[in-house]
């Protein structure tokens, strides 16, 4: 996976270190190793690998990680543009 990189500087991922309790759930669930805990606090290791799946935010017990989750699929986004979010379906 190290070979694949997508567009830089686009991810909506945000980490509130003050709220972080260092539990490590975000590190466990991230499929790209974007987040890692060191010295009892989570940190963003490589923001541009974030695909905004939302796993970290869904499993953060402290509400310290925020991201606008979604599906990185052009066909789906096009449907949202044309038909609206309610009627769009994935493939």
């Amino acid at each position, binding site marked *: *996976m190290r*070979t*694949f*990189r*997508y*567009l*830089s500087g*686009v*991810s*909506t991922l945000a980490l509130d270190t003050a709220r972080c309790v260092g539990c490590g*759930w975000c590190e*466990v*669930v*991230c*499929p*790209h*190793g974007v987040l890692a805990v060191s010295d009892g606090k989570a940190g963003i290791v490589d923001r541009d*690998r*974030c*695909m*905004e*799946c*939302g*796993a970290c935010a*869904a*499993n953060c*017990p402290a509400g310290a990680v925020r991201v*606008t*989750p*979604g*599906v*990185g*699929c*052009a*066909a*789906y*986004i*096009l449907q949202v543009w044309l038909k609206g979010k309610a009627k769009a379906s*994935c*493939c």
Partner: protein
Amino acid sequence: MKPLTGKEPIAAAAGPCACGGASGPGGGAVSCCDASCDASVAADGDSGQPCCGGPQAPAASPMARPGYELLPFVASFVTTLSGPVPVVRTTLGRGDVRGTLGARLGYGRDGYRVAPGLYGVGSPGPDSPVLVTADYKLSFDALRRELSGIDAWILVLDTRGVNVWCAAGKGTFSTGEVVRQVAASGLERVVTHRRLILPQLAAPGVSALKVKERCGFSVVYGPVRAADLPAFLRAGNRATPAMRRVSFTLAERLAVSPVELYHARKWLWWAVLAALAVSGIGPGGFSLSAVWERGPWLAAATGAGLVAGALLVPALLPWLPGRAFAVKGAFVGAIGGLFTVSAAVGVFPGAVPVSGRVGMVLLAAGISSYLAMNFTGSTPFTSPSGVEREMRRAMPLQAAALVAATASWIASAF
């Protein structure tokens, strides 16, 4: 009652039981589908020999129940305090392989599901781990085929026939659905522990904390790939960092690309028809001979764009220039277009003038760019913010390429 020996005329004439017609080699003799034959079976009653004379089918499985079909992947049932639970095989049968092929090629993808609920594998007991998965049959098969020699429970959620990761993204593989299936299956009476192993890719839809709050079962996220489950279980439910990362190998990329070709059936014929129609336009108005002479080349450029965007981009993904998929697609599509141009020039040097050749390359590049952009949905690393940014920039250019290609193709006829 005398059993049939195979020498009776009925048996001699009858084909296999699936026979549709009545005439066998005996000419006009009855087949097993005939009423007279049914009567003879009835008359022969206890002899147990079918009239067709073939080998006798085995007796009904003791697991058979009226109104239910016993699925081939179910090996037996295990009795639990919450009732009988099907134990599934860890090998894939021919039907499973056929089903996988249909799902991968696209035509058998919708409704390829297993019933949600509790299953077992091996000799599961009260201490066995509980593995949670989606009801997409491909997901279910991918899981059970890795579990040979392992005793475990499999809890299948109702994810509407969608795989784990996509279902988590859509919210059907959710905290609520986990809680619902735990209750519906009576899991708390089947196992003595209170632990669920979820695939890591279910995490976008599930809050481990809330599952624990709502049903008392704690969540452990297992590895991304089912193939790593045996090692994960052996290590006491611990995943190595490699087990926690998604991959996108050549084999994985090729497995998801045929679906793109399948989707193309909706527009490909219209595109070819349009290419032929545009080719008929010339100095003398519309001519059918121009359709035949020029049309195939533009249709070939359309096909080159399709192959480039739907097959070559997925295959060559790591080696293509640019981060944006639209750029990668345009690059491969332009090369595909150049190939068709050189074929056209090689076969028929005068067939396509220079402006027409430019049109062919633009068309192939535009189509391939659009299709490559759509492939973002099949990859495990593109973010929605990134895809949206790419689309806003690329789609006007793709539309412009299509218009310019049409214009220069028409111009090349004059």
